């Protein structure tokens, strides 16, 4: 059976309904121009398709590149150093401090170091142009990939726990498992949002390594990942609540303390809110930065 060729009038009507204009028609071949109307459902489907595609791609990339897993190996080692100090000082009861450091520094390094590399390395490999010209915003791809990278950082908690239990025989009981789980999830989201923002901002820099280095120390110090914020010098303390790590660190430590934790909802909300602010800024900045790179013709040049 011959495919039915629509008449000119039918074609114009259906193009109009989709928000397109017919540019040229030769027999059965038609070229359209314009931005198609799209309902929010089909756009969501398209975005989620891109999201999962990017996530799958990141799984393969990470599995193929052992370099991405550097921090999962090195950061938990610091838990050994920390617990050694605590045990030597006769305070093994503070071991949860070492655990929060192991967890937050691993997830932080995965996000702030490996994750924040994503945009710059796409640019370096000259694959950014192809991603940017697709109709789906590149930030969707960034979120998917960095979420995956950051989630590898959750291993830091398990490793830290095994090291502390295995090497030092320090009992480290989880008193509030649901709180711990909620903290892990919110921290993962906040780390992802923050890292996407960094990824976008760093891609503009001449050497993103300089900036990554600059993040490394201050965030962990202000975040109180090992030592609670009240032990910081007084002039630094007011900055800590703006670092999501400071909320996460306290909640991780509380999950391992027998005492009933207080104001859980508020504290978890603080992590989510800080992550959301970073994510919104990331959404705004990524589009602008990519636009700027396109205008300057430096999208593919590192």
């Amino acid at each position, binding site marked *: 059976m011959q495919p039915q060729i629509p008449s000119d009038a039918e074609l114009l009507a259906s193009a109009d309904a989709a928000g397109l204009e017919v540019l040229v028609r030769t027999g059965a071949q038609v070229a359209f121009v314009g931005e198609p109307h799209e309902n929010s459902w089909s756009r969501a489907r398209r975005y989620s398709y891109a999201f999962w595609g990017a996530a799958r791609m990141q799984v393969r990339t990470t599995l193929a590149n052992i370099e991405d897993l*550097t921090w999962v190996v090195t950061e938990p080692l*610091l838990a050994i150093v920390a617990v050694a*100090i605590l045990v030597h000082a006769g305070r093994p009861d503070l071991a949860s401090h070492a655990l929060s450091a192991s967890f937050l520094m691993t997830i932080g390094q995965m996000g702030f170091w490996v994750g924040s590399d994503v945009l710059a390395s796409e640019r370096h490999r000259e694959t950014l142009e192809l991603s940017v010209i697709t109709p789906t915003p590149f930030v969707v791809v960034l979120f998917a990939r960095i979420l995956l990278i950051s989630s590898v950082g959750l291993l830091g908690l398990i490793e830290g726990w095994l090291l502390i239990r295995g090497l030092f025989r320090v009992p480290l009981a989880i008193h509030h498992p649901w709180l711990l789980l909620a903290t892990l999830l919110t921290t993962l989201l906040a780390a992802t949002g923050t890292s996407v923002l960094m990824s976008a901002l760093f891609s503009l820099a001449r050497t993103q390594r300089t*900036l990554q280095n*600059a993040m490394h*120390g201050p965030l*962990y110090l202000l975040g109180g*990942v*090992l030592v609670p914020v009240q032990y910081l010098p007084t002039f630094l303390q007011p900055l800590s609540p703006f670092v999501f790590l400071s909320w996460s660190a306290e909640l991780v430590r509380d999950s391992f303390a027998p005492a009933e934790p207080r104001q859980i909802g508020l504290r978890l909300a603080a992590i989510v809110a800080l992550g959301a602010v970073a994510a919104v800024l990331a959404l705004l900045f990524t589009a602008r930065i990519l636009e700027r790179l396109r205008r300057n013709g430096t999208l593919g040049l590192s």
Partner: protein
Amino acid sequence: MTLRLIQTARVFRQGLRVGWTDFWLFWTWKSWIASWLLRTVCNAMVWVLLGRLLGDPQTVNYLLIGNAVIAGPSAACWTIASSCWDRWDGTYPLQVIAPSGLSASNAGRSFVWPLNGIVTSWVVFAILGFGFDLAFPPRALLLVPGLVVLICLSAYGYSLFVGGFVALAPRLRIMINFGTTNVLMALTGVSVPISFWPGWLGALAQVLPVTHGLHGVRLAFANGSLREIAACASQEILVGVIWTTSSLLAVDRLAAIGRRDGSIDFAG
């Protein structure tokens, strides 16, 4: 023999020039202070604050001295990661086949890292010492800067040796770089006395860089006898010489493995 030494020294000097230029392409004075130094000071400070959490001024001082010293060797350990950089530049095969061999040029290229370490450690000492009211007795003021130089150089020798192996597996360079630093932090008396660890780990610490030099630094702060400090310094030198010699023996042989199996090009 003399001619050979002069040639090697020249290759080393040229390598140093490349490393130096590379370093200042990456860092400027401003970014060095705002990024590298900030990061190092913050990291050291976290550990000193752990002492404050434990509520013992002696622990604070112990951790301060240990972490101000280890800032130097940590920087010198970048030698491990940078052993692979020539691969990406495409100059690695050329160095391997050059008549002077890889070790002199690689050592020269990496020498900027212990220099960076020495300056870093000095500055971290000054900042943290001032910030946490560490008392500097005259003996410490005189001897510690020199001991830090020895420690950074022996860590450099050690890193050259490890770097020779890492050049066979470039993807592991950062992992081994930071892994080594963390092991040094744990075992060499930076955070807890060596006696804290089981005997075999204590024995391992004796052949690692930092251990003896750091002990000397602690003695200098405690106004220990000059003879003992000198003994620590010479042990640190000995450890450094052993590792540097081993690296000279190993690096070219390890590169020859890559030459045989054809893996010394860009890939890794």
